[in-house]
């Protein structure tokens, strides 16, 4: 009897130490993510990057967006990711404007991470827009999402086993009718690529009540399962919602299951600096960005190894 008790106690200690070890590993990863993302968001939304010193560092005009895409591409290459541009032209948001103005044009930044299994046919697209509105540095909207997708791309690229092809895209012109993501989604469909799902991040830098809760649009039970499991592990509350803006719409409109992760709009906990010149790095909650990144990272890692999802 006492032998059984000792064995039981040992098992309990083992389980506790494993859980503690996992928690410490999570903490280490969070600290690492936070450091990387703080540096990137600071650079991307202003301080270290300049078209003209002393001006607002928006990513709105064609020249600003081109410069931002170059900076982004270099940052991805520096992380060991094989990045390339997807240049596009796209019709205007209103057909009547086609009659007067030239087509919209821009460049998405793309990283392809192929599956490790030879029979993989389906694709998972993960994206965030990198442009901002005029006069806004867009630290929350959406340098936070850009940094998160960069971290997720690096983590997925490091996986030993992937059952899906992953495509990471940093979209241009979300603030101008989402033409970057529309052009990209239509191109993928026209190429005949089978897309399992699209995962978008738009604004994850504001959490004034520090509850860590996020808004998510999750269209299927399968995806919901993976996200809920990851959220439970990380102690994140998910508020289910439906977004009718941002880049996932371009995929949803083509019948593709599309997820969107953002700060808690549904509870009114979203940035008061939205589309303002004050959307600077000072307003960003970096711990929140890192934790939200980890949520999608975990869910996608689980999805990537899920045989049922194929």
């Amino acid at each position: 009897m006492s032998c059984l008790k000792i064995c039981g106690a040992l098992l309990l200690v083992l389980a506790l130490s494993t859980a503690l070890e996992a928690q410490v590993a999570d903490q280490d990863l969070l600290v690492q993510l936070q450091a990387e993302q703080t540096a990137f968001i600071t650079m991307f939304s202003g301080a270290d990057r300049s078209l003209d010193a002393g001006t607002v560092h928006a990513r709105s005009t064609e020249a600003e967006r081109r410069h931002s895409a170059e900076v982004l591409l270099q940052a991805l290459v520096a992380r060991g990711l094989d990045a390339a541009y997807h240049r596009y032209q796209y019709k205007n948001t209103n057909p009547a404007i086609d009659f007067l103005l030239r087509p919209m044009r821009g460049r998405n930044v793309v990283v392809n991470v192929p599956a490790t299994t030879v029979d993989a046919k389906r694709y998972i697209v993960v994206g965030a827009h990198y442009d901002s509105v005029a006069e806004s540095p867009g630290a929350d909207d959406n340098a936070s999402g850009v940094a998160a997708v960069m971290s997720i791309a690096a983590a997925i690229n490091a996986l030993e086993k992937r059952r899906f092809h992953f495509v990471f895209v940093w979209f241009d012109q979300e603030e101008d009718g989402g033409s970057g993501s529309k052009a990209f989604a239509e191109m993928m469909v026209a190429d005949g690529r089978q897309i399992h799902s699209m995962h978008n991040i738009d604004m994850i830098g504001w959490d004034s009540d520090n509850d860590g809760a996020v808004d998510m649009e999750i269209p299927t039970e399968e995806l919901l399962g993976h996200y809920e499991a990851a959220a439970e592990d990380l102690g994140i509350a998910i508020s289910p919602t439906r977004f009718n803006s941002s880049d996932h719409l371009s995929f949803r409109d083509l019948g593709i299951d599309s997820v969107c992760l953002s700060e808690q709009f549904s509870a009114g906990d979203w940035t008061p600096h939205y589309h303002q010149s004050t959307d600077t790095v000072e307003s960003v909650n970096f711990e929140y960005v890192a934790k939200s990144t980890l949520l999608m990272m975990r869910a996608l890692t689980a999805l990537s190894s899920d045989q049922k999802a194929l």
Partner: protein
Amino acid sequence: MIAAKQQVWGLLLLTLGAFAWRGFIYLALGSTVPAWFFVGVLCCLLIAWLVGQRLWRFMLYVWAFFLMLYGLLRGAIVVLAQAGTIGSAHVVDATSIWFVVTSLAYFGAGIALRSSLRRSLLPKKQSSIS
């Protein structure tokens, strides 16, 4: 000096060519509005040409008036974009100096077409020798 009639044909082909190019570009991008507009204008001009001289001249005047209006409309977009009334970065980018020049060209083409049409209507001068 180019004859008024040749000027009319030259301006007509030039301006129609510009709209045909716009229609082609947008058709490739999946937008049919500019192409339908071009086809519509072409049909109207063709019908007018087949029906008779009076309708043909009237249609050319309408086209000249449209070109002036088109140039002015583009000019108004430039003013609104530069004044910050239009929030779209694409509109601001698209209304570059080249856009201003082409808008002026459309407006100028309309005026030139109208004056060429009027000149082609004037009676020819009688020779003093005869």
